[in-house]
């Protein structure tokens, strides 16, 4: 049995848990807890250690989706969760510019762990205050070759699309590496 994993990261309340719920075949094993800090009481629950979802590919292969906790005080979990990942997704709440700086920080930290492919998901595009993916790309200083994908995490099809875009990015990278290896021979 082979297990591979993709990590879903991003600031507090970006929609990471929602994203994993939309496609996981098991109830997301979430370590949600009630929020006690009044500043963060914009919703009832937050992820403390991680979210955990699963998609069985075939008898011998499963894909795990790990969601990181959004709050900085749990960032000691990030590096542990990112070990051996195929790629990662940075979720951003497109309606809350006050979280963009944090999103940039998270992006940089994850990039520093390993040269792993990633995409940015511009979440909550169903809300009228959402910044467009193009504006988010500039605001977050996303590299031109990295995809910024519109997303509504409550919509399974859109979540699938983000996952697929990440997998296509990984595939492209592998093809490039293969071409590079051939050139060397």
């Amino acid at each position, binding site marked *: 049995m*082979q297990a*591979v994993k993709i990590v879903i990261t991003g600031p507090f309340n970006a929609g990471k848990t929602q994203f994993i719920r939309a*496609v996981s075949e098991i109830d997301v094993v979430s370590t949600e807890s009630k929020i006690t800090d009044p500043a963060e009481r914009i919703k009832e629950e937050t992820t403390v250690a991680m979210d955990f979802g699963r*998609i069985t*590919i*075939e008898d011998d*292969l499963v*894909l795990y989706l790990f969601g990181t906790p959004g709050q900085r005080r749990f960032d000691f979990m990030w590096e542990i969760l990112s*070990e*051996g*990942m*195929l*790629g990662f997704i940075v979720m951003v709440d497109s*309606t809350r*510019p*006050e*979280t*963009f*700086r944090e999103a940039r920080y998270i992006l940089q930290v994850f990039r*520093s*762990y*390993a*040269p*792993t*492919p990633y995409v940015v998901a511009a979440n909550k595009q169903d809300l*009228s*205050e*959402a*910044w*467009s993916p*193009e*504006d988010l790309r*500039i*605001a977050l200083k996303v590299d031109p070759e990295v995809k910024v994908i519109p997303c509504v995490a409550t919509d*399974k099809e859109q979540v*699938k699309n983000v*996952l*697929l875009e990440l*997998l*296509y990015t*990984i*595939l492209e990278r*592998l*093809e490039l*590496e*293969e071409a590079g*290896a051939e050139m060397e021979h």
Partner: protein
Amino acid sequence: MALKGNLRDFSTTQLLNLIHLARKTGCLTVRTSSEAARLYFRDGKLIHAHTANHDGHLATMLVKAGKLTNEQAQKIMARPEGRNDVQLGMLLIKAGHVSREDIIQSVRRYMLDIVYTLFGWYDGEFEFTPDALPSADRILIPVNLEQVILEGSRRLQEHERLQDELPDLDHTALRFTNGADARLRAVNLTVEEWRVISFVSPRNTIRVIAQANNMDDFQVRKVVYGLIQAGIVELVRPTGQMAALGVPGEFGAEKPPAIKRSLIERLINRIKRI
């Protein structure tokens, strides 16, 4: 699509940079508890600005530039054509009172003064209304935002935000962006900026650049921040360290790519069917 928020989270510099890069057309409204300003843009260039306290009429601008006295302006504004800037401009030029160049300079100066004060606002709601343009009787002078951003950042006296944007001088280096040479030709750099530019290399950390130029942390941050916002340099990890960090990850050379590729293809096929 909204482009709305607070300057606390997305600064004036960042906003202007976004408008510039996305070549936006429309009106940016910014409101603090005591002030408000409106800036208009066409294709990413600033074309007009006014504040809540100043109507932004040509007569007001010319007073500010010392080309008209207060009394003259009041008289002009009392007449209907005095409120049409384009007409008024032509009248004044015909009367030999001011030159075309005077008008252009006064309008430009007036707009820039407003924009530069915006750089000093750290708390205020902003909203961008796409495609909104000033009324047709205004004189519009297109101003390239690159220069404005550079100059605004020069004036940006805010240690904290700089600290936030460039937290780690010891583990960050600079390199030129793709369009750097064209941009360098389009802007006027200060001596300090040139000094920093001359040390730009992935091998030099920002700390090294600061030391080589006898700059303190704040000075070097300020210059580097301005150069980044103007699109001339970008941050990179210093190359000296890359080697140390180049630990092969899980995703890498150990496994033959053929197997991995088929694995990714299996994932793709499965997710399509969810």
